[in-house]
């Protein structure tokens, strides 16, 4: 009975139904397209997580604070999913290109100086060939040297002493053949001691230069 009724539907109605079906399909596609999936994953540094990420959307927020923990967000206005811990291998496969493109993190050295001088202490001088080698291997490398002093003397005097120390390190590295793509020297004078001391206090550990190779 039903089948016969359906067959008797006017052609116009059939067309209407067809269009309705087509429109439904279209809207389904559109909905799926707008429901793209975004993913945020927290990674360990040196085997452990040292911080946290708070993921905030218009519809709620979630905190990630464990290695390989992740949230998903569907579409442009979704709420973050409950955090789940992913398999390390799955993350490495899903994010292979971006992980491969990650530069090696910068390398740091601390060099120490004689009292009131731009001359390096013998132990620190021994590190210079290694630093020059790191620069050679990391081309294009950016070298940054920040000079520091102890608290003996005025701010102005120590600012200049810090600059002198930074420049001395760059000059010695140049002699060893290091040719970074760019060099940045600066001084913090006595404003940023490694070991806090009273003013006018001779502290060898504060007579230093911080070397960063990026």
């Amino acid at each position, binding site marked *: 009975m039903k089948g016969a009724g359906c067959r008797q539907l006017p052609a116009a109605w059939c067309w209407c139904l067809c269009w309705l079906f087509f429109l439904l399909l279209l809207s389904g596609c559109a909905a799926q397209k707008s429901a793209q999936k975004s993913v*945020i994953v*927290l*990674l360990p540094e040196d085997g452990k997580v040292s911080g946290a990420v708070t*993921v*905030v959307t218009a519809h709620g927020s979630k905190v990630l604070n464990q290695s390989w923990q992740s949230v998903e967000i569907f579409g442009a206005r979704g709420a973050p999913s409950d955090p789940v811990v992913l398999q390390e291998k799955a993350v490495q496969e899903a994010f292979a290109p*971006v992980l491969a*493109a990650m530069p090696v993190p910068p390398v740091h050295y601390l060099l120490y100086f004689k009292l009131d001088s731009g001359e390096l202490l013998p132990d620190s001088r021994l590190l210079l060939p290694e630093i020059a080698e790191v620069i050679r291997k990391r081309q*294009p490398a950016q070298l940054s040297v920040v000079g520091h002093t102890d608290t003996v003397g005025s701010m102005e005097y120590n600012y200049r002493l810090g600059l002198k120390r930074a420049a001395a390190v760059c000059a010695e590295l140049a002699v060893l053949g290091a040719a970074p793509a760019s060099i940045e020297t600066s001084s913090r004078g006595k404003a940023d001691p490694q070991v806090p001391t009273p003013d006018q206090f001779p502290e060898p550990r504060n007579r230093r230069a911080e070397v960063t190779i990026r």
Partner: protein
Amino acid sequence: MGTVIMRIALLLFWFLLAGAGSARAQEVRPVGLVKSASGEASVLREGRRIAALPGLALERGDLLATGASGTLGVILRDDTVLSLGPNSQTRIERFAFDPARGEFGLVLRVARGVIDYLSGSISRLAPGSVRIETPVATLGIRGTHLLARIEP
């Protein structure tokens, strides 16, 4: 009277000079450099497209962009390390790293695509001043390493 005007004029002159000097210093100081690039990788700066070759100095406001086969690796001046996967766009919206004045802040805006972020000194010295903004969510970062795939 004349000397007072002279002094004011001199003071104004110094202010202008100092202002111009600091503005110039901020402009030219790079915020980082391109360490590696593959495939289609470029930097959009003030409407110009610059090929993102290793060694290129980056400025605040730069938009890092990759094509379907491109990747890009950069290091910022505070030691933040970043990489972009294919089909990705990230702008260095804000970068302040001035330990002498205690000014710190980093805002990256990921329009779409994939990013690997490893925090540097800004995050360590001023927790709470680092943010990754995306069309789907804002990520508040406290000294860490993360991956994000953003598909708005």
